[in-house]
């Protein structure tokens, strides 16, 4: 076939152009993922420091109230933005999109490289806030004005400025990357790779990227305006406030305006993280149960509909801010409606497992753990989507438990599963399995031991955001004991994550050599001539795709899977308008 990108590109020769200023999407993916994981470890450390204070209040002198709020803020922002968003879009997006759609690289490789380096700058600016006078901001990850930029809030001098600047830089990086991902999906698919033959991982990343491109501008707008309020004395968000006996120079600003802008970004952000996870889980579940994904088209439409609906639910984060009851009704209803396509996905995952040849590999364990965790977190989301239930629970640990289950732990389980699944493709070696299994079980059980009790604490009325829970009569002694328990488990789970990082590094050099397609997967990325793929991915000729990515256990086929680029005569080709092949997957 015609190679739409001309001749096979010659790979960069020097170390610098190959591994540092690289324009190869695979190297950029590893750079993105490596940076995100490193900054994620900082976020993890901060969470453990928070837990030390909650579990053993006053025992650690260096964790005073100011530091505690700084840890909370930086933990939240790092995990949501600099770890999960960067990892799913910059890491998995970069690695998987070109390989899964049969492209040689992203369509704008130079801009892709720039995207990573700008992201790195944003991370460095963020981390620099630990070293400026007053330290990082302690305003909470939502950075609500007026307190975020007022004296009395930790980091109100420099920390908040660096945080906002870092976010603006991050948005620039995400936009550069996002334009690449969307354009690559639309313009660089190989012959035969129709949109409805793309693996669901690509669909998830594609739609999440569109969400990012449309939602991050809201954060940009609010970031610019708050920066001006802080530095140049405008009053976009800042009302007139008497602080420490002094009347501020601001007047008339609207803190609610910030909340609207923030959550217009903030809620789609949940799905920027979740949609790639949904897609990846769909692929992992199909490969490791040797069965076609159930309801492929339904899954695609569910991703698209969830993405669209995510823009009309933002104010459910603001029920306690007060709003017209009709708005409350609208946002509660839209929030409940979004549960419908989400539930369809969960049903389809379960139906894919039904009568499948389930292999309890490490990626599959993480996938199953994701489904359970996402289900738990999603169901409590239904509680919180109701105004009348949300208002009493909003300020409690019930919310902490909910969002950590649904958008903290659940996507991270997918990250672990996905890294384990694609590690042999990336490095040519397998991750050490005993270590991986140990990591899985401690993480999975540990997170339940951490977050399930938090629901109870929340219903009990234990408020979140408090530095110290001593001497509150409504908090019984049993709650304190539970906090100690949660802290101890959190420390164990935290340490086990180091084991995962060790496994990543150790296995890259000492791991068992991987076969080109160790999971016997049908999607295109496993068909590259070399493992790991060389620069340009496909050798002299681009692949030609003849079927979807889910041709597993096709009756009459020579193996229990048929690669997407296997000749049409191998079978498993869609025969009708329907994207799915006629035969239902049968366990082998």
């Amino acid at each position, binding site marked *: 076939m015609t190679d*739409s*990108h001309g001749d096979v590109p010659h790979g960069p020769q020097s170390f610098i152009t190959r591994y540092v200023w690289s324009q190869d999407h695979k190297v950029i993916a590893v750079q993105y993922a490596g940076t995100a994981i490193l900054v994620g470890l900082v976020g993890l450390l901060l969470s453990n420091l928070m837990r030390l204070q909650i579990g053993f209040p006053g025992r650690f002198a260096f964790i005073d109230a100011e530091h505690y709020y700084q840890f909370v803020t930086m933990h939240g922002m790092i995990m949501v933005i600099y770890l999960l968003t960067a990892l799913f879009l910059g890491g998995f997006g970069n690695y998987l999109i070109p390989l899964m759609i049969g492209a040689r690289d992203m*369509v*704008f490789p130079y801009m892709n490289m720039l995207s990573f380096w700008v992201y790195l700058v944003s991370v460095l600016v963020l981390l620099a806030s630990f070293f400026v006078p007053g330290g990082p901001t302690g305003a909470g990850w939502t950075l609500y004005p007026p307190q975020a930029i007022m004296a009395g809030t930790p980091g109100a001098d420099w920390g908040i400025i660096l945080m906002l600047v870092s976010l603006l830089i991050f948005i620039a990086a995400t*936009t550069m990357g*996002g*334009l*690449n991902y*969307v*354009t*690559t999906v*639309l*313009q*660089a698919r190989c012959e035969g790779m129709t949109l409805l033959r793309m693996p669901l991982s690509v669909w998830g990343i594609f739609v999440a990227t569109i969400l990012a*491109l*449309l939602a991050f*501008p*809201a954060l*940009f*707008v609010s970031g*610019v*305006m708050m920066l*001006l309020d802080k530095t*140049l*004395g*405008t*009053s*976009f968000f800042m009302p007139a406030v008497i602080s420490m006996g002094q009347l501020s*120079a601001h*007047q*008339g*600003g*609207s803190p609610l*305006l910030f909340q*609207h*802008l923030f959550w*217009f970004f903030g809620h789609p952000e949940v799905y920027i993280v979740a949609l790639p996870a949904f897609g990846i889980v769909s692929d992992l579940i199909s490969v490791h149960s040797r069965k076609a994904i159930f309801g492929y088209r339904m899954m695609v439409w569910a991703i698209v509909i969830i993405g669209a609906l995510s823009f009309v639910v933002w104010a459910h984060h603001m029920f306690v801010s007060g709003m017209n009851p009709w708005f409350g009704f609208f946002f509660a209803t839209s929030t409940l409606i979004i549960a419908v396509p989400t539930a369809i996905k969960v049903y389809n995952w379960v139906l894919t497992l039904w009568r499948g040849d389930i292999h309890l590999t490490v990626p599959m364990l993480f996938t199953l753990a994701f489904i359970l965790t996402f289900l738990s977190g999603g169901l409590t989301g239904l509680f919180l989507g109701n105004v009348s239930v949300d208002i009493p629970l909003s300020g409690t640990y019930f919310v902490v438990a909910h969002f950590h289950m649904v958008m903290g732990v659940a996507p991270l389980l997918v990250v672990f599963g996905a890294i384990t699944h694609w590690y042999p493709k990336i490095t040519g070696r397998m991750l050490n399995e005993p270590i991986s299994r140990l990591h899985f079980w401690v993480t999975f059980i540990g997170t339940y031991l951490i977050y399930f009790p938090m629901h109870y604490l929340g219903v009990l009325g234990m408020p979140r955001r408090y530095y110290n829970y001593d001497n509150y009569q409504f908090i019984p002694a049993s709650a304190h004991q539970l906090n100690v328990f949660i802290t101890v488990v959190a420390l164990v789970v935290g340490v086990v994550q180091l084991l995962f990082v060790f496994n990543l590094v150790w296995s890259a050099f000492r791991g068992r050599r991987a076969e080109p397609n160790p999971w016997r997967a049908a999607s295109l990325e496993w068909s590259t001539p070399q493992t790991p793929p060389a620069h340009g991915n496909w050798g002299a000729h681009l692949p030609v795709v003849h079927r979807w990515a889910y041709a597993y256990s096709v009756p009459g086929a020579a193996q229990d899977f048929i690669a997407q680029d296997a000749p049409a005569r191998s079978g498993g080709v869609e025969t009708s308008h329907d994207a799915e092949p006629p035969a239902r997957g049968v366990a082998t």
Partner: protein
Amino acid sequence: MTAAALGPRPWMGPRERAADTGLWCFMGVAGTLFSLFLVADVMRLASPDATAIGLPRQLWLSTAWLLCGSVLMGLAAGAARAGQGARSLRLMWASGATTLAFLATQGWAWQQLIEARVVLAGNPAASFFYVLTALHGLHVAGGLLAWAVALRALGRAVDHPRPTAWRLALCARYWHFLFVVWAALLASMTWLTPDIARAICGQR
């Protein structure tokens, strides 16, 4: 001229098609950004402390400059497509010059406002004026970088300009976009008074 700037054409190769799609996506992002600023503008102007500001007359001149730049850029793309390299080059230079004149006139408008003691801090209508014009100016300045790249490519191929026509067409499309955004911003700054904002927000 305009049609040449709007969509992919059969003569486009993969690289051109990618740039074409990428630009549409970027315009979507930039459009979202300005739309959100305008929504924020409405919400903020609804506050009691907002008062309308008198816009400097220079803005009408700058609008004319940007319109000229947009039209000239489109003509330059058409000329390159027709193989008229020298004409295309002249039109490109003229387009760049009018765009620079736009930026200079915007600066002049700022100066007039500052002399009238309409400053960034204080009245939110003024704050939004400065922020929106600055942000739009940055997008124009970014466009000039792309213009410089296209001009360089055209300058090297004056005798056979057709292969560079796609670059000019993309620049032209971006310039049309910049003009439409500016027109929307100017319209909002002219007609979207605090009274109207309060009416939109149901506060009167």
